[in-house]
């Protein structure tokens, strides 16, 4: 039963700017961040970190450090190895690089943790750190992607520096003729700088051993549940043995998706030492030794017909994974989401992640954001080249609602997106023609104004296709006092989930917002969810809360109806009062109902459970799409190269808006990060592998004067989820960069094109375009770097296939490198002449195949799979004695490499 009756004039909470529940404690200094946690006997940790980017550790001398006052223990990897650890990616797959908590015989980047000092105070720990003597036999580091292509493997046990690879170079054969034959071809190259995520609170972890098998961990994380699951799995402990608490966290932005080396080391240290320990990352560590993000080198070519309609595109993408990525990554999502919002018949790509001797790659708000940056900037470049207005060019190619359902060139079904509608809403609310007139007038006065647009779609609220991306659980109860308590698996690092979820409850249950207490931030509360990751909490937890509140309201109504001898349909709840239609004298407060439900079971309907509780776990559709169109106007100073942002208008469609203040806050925060990326932030490395922005004096975070007032338009097209929400956490950081770059490029157009976009667009780089010379020195620097890059990539030698003497029959252990991590399986082959059949056995189950072919030592076969979506896997394997290698084409996921050996 789902009683939807809502009395006219009921107080609305969803869609209103309710003040945040989190603010009272945060504004008065009463929050509890990890560094605020104090335990009796707690010790403090500081790490000894490598000052050298690459080399063999010859010796670590701890003698002097051990003598320092307050020092209780110093651990190296030799000590931590007593506790076996398997580091995992966000997808709970094993990390492929030989990563250990502390350096194990070699260092692979500056900042690599080598030892941990545990002392009575952080200052004492740092005193001892400065006395640890580490001798490293230094080797020439690989710093750039170009270095990685030619240099000796960062990890000596690997063949090359390719950390991850997807896509298919051969597909260019099909795309190239389309490019060659097109009326117009435009190309671009973007070198995206390295970003330090830089939450205001760095990483933080405190661990307290509670007993032989139990541990309480306070951690700055994005989901206590995910952190607890990760720690338990990585350390081989029972899941319940680790409780993670994260009351308040000072920003995450993807960096804190999973515990990483230092946090896990803290937990292991607490296990070994059997004392509470705490590590608070300082800003120097945060900038140089927290995982970094972006640093990509991407080329994209797009063919258009005479009318500006997209024909085909080819992309070559490379990303610096550093030495110890939090998951090797070729960023397949860039390619999956580059084109679904546009009608593009043919797309091909090759995409790789490269190991280098730099800090590892981690998550950062909209990790696949490059798809929007490279597409939208190329699109406006094409518009200028062809002479079509950039808005008109979008109109000719966007997938509008009337074009849906639509299938993208990579096979993604598109049926619920509104980028075109957002663009129309945006255009209806800005005076575009007026701005163009103003721009023309300004040019006459020597002032250079520009306007830029970007449209995009974003997969949000993913659930069910990847291990950690699950549904959400909500436990709700009305206490005997009539107050409502919600226990959630959500987590806020600024998201305000306690606020938005309370709004949903207040609206659905008919109680006052003030009467709702929301508990989250503790793995002992609620159930598993990955918390803040992939713009999902509003969508999934919102839906779960929505339904749980309805269920609880139904229960209240059943009790009330029974007490009043009325039918359930006549019961309404409003403002904490339960009313019976036509019988105002029978109105009761929720508290009265609750007192009866808890204390007088005899008055409840026959068989009804006592108390007023409801629990719901919501499994939403696999993906919920958010769309947006943004516009930005700038003035560029030809004198200094400085960019001033004049206006910025966002038209987004995040479906049902629970709290506009929260939604706009998410958009604004993402846009500020976008502005930082385009204009200010940069974590460069020198040739010896030293990070050059080690303080906030050098790593330039946007300040108040760098960010304009944003204007918002909300499209509010409900999604298919309960409640109709769409995710909004990452969008600003995805659509923001191309919007701003396009505005700058428009202002610079009379001077020239930004041939190659090197970020950030510092004032000096803006002058490069205006003056058509290398003012910034960027060209000279990159040309030097590219010389090193022009070396052939290692091509696997073409093997003339001899017939396999030993045959292929039998079992083979194979590893398929999928975008969600390596997948291990056992392959069984039976060759009957040239025909091959057999099966693949993975932990998820076994699947048979037949009709494969054997030619020499080459085997080809196909296999259809249903999960995560319907695709045909096409295997192409080369056997050589007892080893096998090859490729598996996985439809939209491109190609993955396969390696294996005979069992």
């Amino acid at each position, binding site marked *: 039963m789902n009683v939807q009756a809502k009395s006219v004039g009921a107080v609305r909470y969803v869609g209103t700017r309710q003040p945040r529940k989190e*603010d009272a404690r945060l504004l*008065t200094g009463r929050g509890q961040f990890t560094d605020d946690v104090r335990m009796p006997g707690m010790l403090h940790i500081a790490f000894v970190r490598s000052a050298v980017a690459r080399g063999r550790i010859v010796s670590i001398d701890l003698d002097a450090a051990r003598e320092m006052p307050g020092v209780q223990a110093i651990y190296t990897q030799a000590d931590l190895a007593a506790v076996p650890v398997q580091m995992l990616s966000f997808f709970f797959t094993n990390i492929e690089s030989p990563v250990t908590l502390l350096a194990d015989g070699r260092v692979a980047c500056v900042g690599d943790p080598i030892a941990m000092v545990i002392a009575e105070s952080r200052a004492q720990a740092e005193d001892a750190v400065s006395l640890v003597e580490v001798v490293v036999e230094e080797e020439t580091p690989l710093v750039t992607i170009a270095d990685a292509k030619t240099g000796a493997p960062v990890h000596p046990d690997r063949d090359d520096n390719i950390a991850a690879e997807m896509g298919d170079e051969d597909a260019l054969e099909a795309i190239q003729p389309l490019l060659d034959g097109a009326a117009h071809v435009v190309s671009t190259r973007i070198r995206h700088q390295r970003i330090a995520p830089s*939450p205001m609170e760095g990483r933080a972890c405190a661990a307290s051993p509670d007993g032989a098998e139990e541990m309480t961990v306070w951690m700055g994380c994005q989901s206590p549940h995910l952190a607890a699951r990760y720690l338990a799995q990585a350390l081989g402990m029972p899941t319940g043995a680790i409780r993670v608490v994260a009351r308040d966290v*000072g920003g995450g932005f993807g960096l804190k998706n999973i515990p990483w080396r230092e946090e896990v080391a803290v937990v292991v240290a607490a296990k070994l030492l059997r004392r509470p320990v705490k590590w608070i990352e300082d*800003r120097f560590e945060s900038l140089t030794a927290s995982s970094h993000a972006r640093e990509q080198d991407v080329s994209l070519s797009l063919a258009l017909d005479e009318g500006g309609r997209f024909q085909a595109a080819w992309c070559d993408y490379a990303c610096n994974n550093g030495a110890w990525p939090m998951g090797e990554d070729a960023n397949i999502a860039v390619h999956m989401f580059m084109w679904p919002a546009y009608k593009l018949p043919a797309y091909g790509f090759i995409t790789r992640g490269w190991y280098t001797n730099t800090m590892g790659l981690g998550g950062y708000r909209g990790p696949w954001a490059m798809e929007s940056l490279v597409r939208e900037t190329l699109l406006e470049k094409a518009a200028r080249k062809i002479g079509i207005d950039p808005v008109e060019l979008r109109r000719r190619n966007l997938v509008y609602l009337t074009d849906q359902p639509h299938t993208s060139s990579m096979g993604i079904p598109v049926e619920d997106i509104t980028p075109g509608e957002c663009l129309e809403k945006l255009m209806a609310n800005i005076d575009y023609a007026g701005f163009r007139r103003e721009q023309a007038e300004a040019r006459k006065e020597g002032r250079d104004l520009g306007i830029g647009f970007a449209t995009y779609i974003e997969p949000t609220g993913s659930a069910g296709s990847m291990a950690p991306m699950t549904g959400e659980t909500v436990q709700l109860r009305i206490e005997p006092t009539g107050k409502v308590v919600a226990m959630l698996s959500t987590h806020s690092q*600024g998201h305000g989930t306690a606020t938005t979820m309370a709004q949903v409850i207040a609206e659905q249950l008919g109680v006052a917002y003030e009467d709702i207490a929301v508990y989250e931030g503790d793995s002992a509360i609620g159930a598993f969810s990955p918390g803040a990751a992939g713009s999902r909490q509003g969508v999934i937890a919102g839906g779960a809360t929505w339904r749980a509140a309805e269920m609880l309201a139904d229960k209240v109504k059943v009790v009330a109806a029974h007490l009043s001898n009325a039918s359930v349909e006549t019961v309404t709840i409003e403002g904490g009062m339960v009313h019976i239609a036509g019988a105002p004298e029978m109105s009761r407060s929720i508290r009265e109902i609750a007192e009866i439900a808890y204390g007088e079971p005899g008055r409840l309907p026959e068989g009804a459970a006592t108390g007023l509780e409801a629990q719901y776990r919501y499994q939403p559709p696999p993906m919920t799409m958010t769309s947006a169109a943004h516009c930005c106007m700038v003035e560029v100073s030809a004198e200094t190269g400085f960019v001033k942002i004049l206006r910025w208008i966002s038209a987004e469609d995040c479906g049902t808006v629970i709290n506009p203040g929260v939604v706009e806050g998410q958009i604004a*925060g993402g846009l500020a990060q976008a502005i930082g990326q385009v204009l200010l932030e940069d974590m460069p490395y020198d040739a010896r592998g030293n990070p050059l922005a080690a303080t906030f004096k050098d790593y330039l975070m946007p300040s*108040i004067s760098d960010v304009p007032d944003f204007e918002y338009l909300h499209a509010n097209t409900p999604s298919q989820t309960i409640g109709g929400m769409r995710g909004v956490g990452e969008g600003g950081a995805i659509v923001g960069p191309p919007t701003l770059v396009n505005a700058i490029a428009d202002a610079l157009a009379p001077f020239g094109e930004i041939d190659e976009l090197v970020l950030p667009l510092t004032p000096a780089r803006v002058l490069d375009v205006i003056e058509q010379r290398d003012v910034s020195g960027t060209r000279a620097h990159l040309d030097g770097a590219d010389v090193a890059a022009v070396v052939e990539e290692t091509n696997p030698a073409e093997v003339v296939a001899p017939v396999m003497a030993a045959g292929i029959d039998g079992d083979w252990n194979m590893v398929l490198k999928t975008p969600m991590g390596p997948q291990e399986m056992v392959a069984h082959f039976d060759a009957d002449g040239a025909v091959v059949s057999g099966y693949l056995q993975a932990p998820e189950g076994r699947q048979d195949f037949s009709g494969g072919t054997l030619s020499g030592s080459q085997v080809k076969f196909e296999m259809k799979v249903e999960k995560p979506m319907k695709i045909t896997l096409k295997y192409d394997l080369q056997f050589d004695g007892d080893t096998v290698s090859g490729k598996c084409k996985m439809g939209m996921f491109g190609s993955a490499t396969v390696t294996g050996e005979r069992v």
Partner: protein
Amino acid sequence: MSEHAIELTVNGHCHATRVEARTSLGEFLRDGLGYTGTHLACEHGVCGACTVMIDGRAMRSCLMLAVQADGAEVTTVEGLAEADGTLHPVQQALKDNFGLQCGFCTPGVAITMACVTRDNAGVEAPRMEDALTTAMSGHICRCTGYQGIRRAIRQLAGAST
């Protein structure tokens, strides 16, 4: 390393204790006295999260030693609201305008705004807005894009005239 006896007032409470010379005021307030509302986010004077009021002036508590605060009157974010819990106008303005998200930078922001509004009490709205905005350039917020902070500034400026 020298150790020093110091006496100071924090949020109206007198504290007499000993500190090591190298302990920063921010660290001392947090670890020595338990005023954990003051946050250390960069410890090199750029981000502003640790800003506290010392003898009425907003200063970085990471750029000052505890021993240098001997005899000082310090106000931290814990000391801004009224005893009955009524929020200080700057706290209320930040709350009204979604001026914070994660809240880590907020204590310093609130202290700066409290000082600037007090020093400029009664000035015209544009001047107050300008003074507050200029002073806010001494704070980094990673979450909000400064939108709610700017709205809070306008609310405070409007209220002052």
